């Protein structure tokens, strides 16, 4: 369970998050939509302690993310994150990519790490790519590798930041299918996305971000199909 409580975040003089509150329950899928620069990515970075915050609190499974006592590396093991850029490790095979963190972060034996890595690679449909170097694969395959790499750490929750935005249109589907699969399996997910169809069909709730605040949040179909806030209406009419 992730609890975001009145979070404020600034870069210098620029306040990017202006009091964001959001609770995500276990097994829930929440999509975040909104215009460019509204602070969507920044919120995910704050949840993962990649960025600090100025005010408020973020609690992940009872752990205060930004408290000085919190071990950030340990916290990040619970939170898988996938970015717009897949950032495969180019000097390792697909299997080594997925086995690295379990081995060096969780200190698993090599065999154990490889077993988990293989399982997650099969999970995302890369069962035939173990010994391939990622640079030889398509963006969609590399993005699925990034998902498997994160899943191999057995996170409680996954954060996705526009994971299909950098993909060629014909490759978007395979990655969305993988996300859908995870959602069906009950993974807790926060997805920043520009795919309104995905947000509507896969998520439980959708939050619309506008200039650093959640301008509207509600049941997914309601927000996408029948938005109440004029700002959300305007945004959705533009992206359609």
């Amino acid at each position, binding site marked *: 369970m992730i609890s975001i409580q009145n979070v404020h975040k600034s870069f210098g003089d620029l306040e990017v998050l202006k009091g964001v509150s959001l609770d995500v329950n276990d097994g829930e899928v929440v999509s975040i939509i909104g215009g460019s620069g509204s602070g969507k990515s920044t919120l995910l970075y704050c949840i993962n302690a990649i960025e600090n915050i100025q005010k408020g609190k973020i609690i992940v499974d009872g752990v205060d993310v930004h408290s000085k006592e919190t071990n950030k*590396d340990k916290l*990040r093991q619970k939170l*898988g*994150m996938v*970015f717009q850029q897949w*950032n495969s490790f*180019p000097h390792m095979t697909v299997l080594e990519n997925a086995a*690295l963190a379990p081995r060096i*972060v969780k200190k698993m034996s090599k065999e154990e790490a490889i077993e988990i890595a293989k399982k997650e690679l099969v999970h995302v449909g890369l069962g035939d790519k173990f010994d391939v170097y990622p640079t*030889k694969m398509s963006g969609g395959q590399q993005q699925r590798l990034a998902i498997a790499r994160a899943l191999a750490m057995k996170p409680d929750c996954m954060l996705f930041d526009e994971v299909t935005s950098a993909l060629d249109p014909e490759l978007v589907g395979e990655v969305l299918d993988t996300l859908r699969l995870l959602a069906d399996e009950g993974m807790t997910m926060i997805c920043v996305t520009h795919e309104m169809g995905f947000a509507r069909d896969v998520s439980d709730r959708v939050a619309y971000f506008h200039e650093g605040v959640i301008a509207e949040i509600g049941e997914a179909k309601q927000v996408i199909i029948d938005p109440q806030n004029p700002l959300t209406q305007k945004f959705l009419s533009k992206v359609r």
Partner: protein
Amino acid sequence: MNSLFTPLSWSDTGFILIGVMNTVTISIVAIVLGTLLGLAVGFLRAESSKVVNVLLGSVLDILRSVPLIIQLILFSTFVGAMGYPLDPFVAGSIILSLYTMAFMSEVFRSGFESVHQSMRTSARSLGMSYWQTIFYIRLPIGLRAVFPSWLGVALSVIKDSALVSVIGYMELLRTSDQLISRTQQPLMILIGVGIFYFIISYPLSSYGRYVERKMAI
């Protein structure tokens, strides 16, 4: 009449080989030390603040822009005048290593910087610590990226090592110089020495091409 000059003979082989060995030795010392120091300094430059960078950068600029031959003479004269005359090999190794370090540090700095912030963030998001990200991600990726430049610096060190002769180190060029004044056969000897430099450098450059091919994934 011809007693003043004696022609090149087989008995000179040992003398030449000592020159070859000395060139190889000081080159290896400078490449190894220059690489290790360059790695540390390059890392420091990639990671530290602007102030530290400007300070470090100006020292490196001096090392890179003052001709090696002048650095060698100044250094050995200076330590001699201070009352600590150094063996030419030691003095030459120190200066040649520092000179190499100045170039290597730039090579490694660009290697570290070639791994983008978003790649580092991805690694950190998997729970890797700062140092794990360095050792498992930035170092291996960065080193691959700059290997050709590293090789270029290493090869030029072998050639630059000839300059250590000015402070009296008996490396290949100085050996040949002495043979030339004795035999008065400069053309033949210089061609021979050129071939020796090639023979010394060739394994390194062909090994380098082999490594590059292996790494091209």
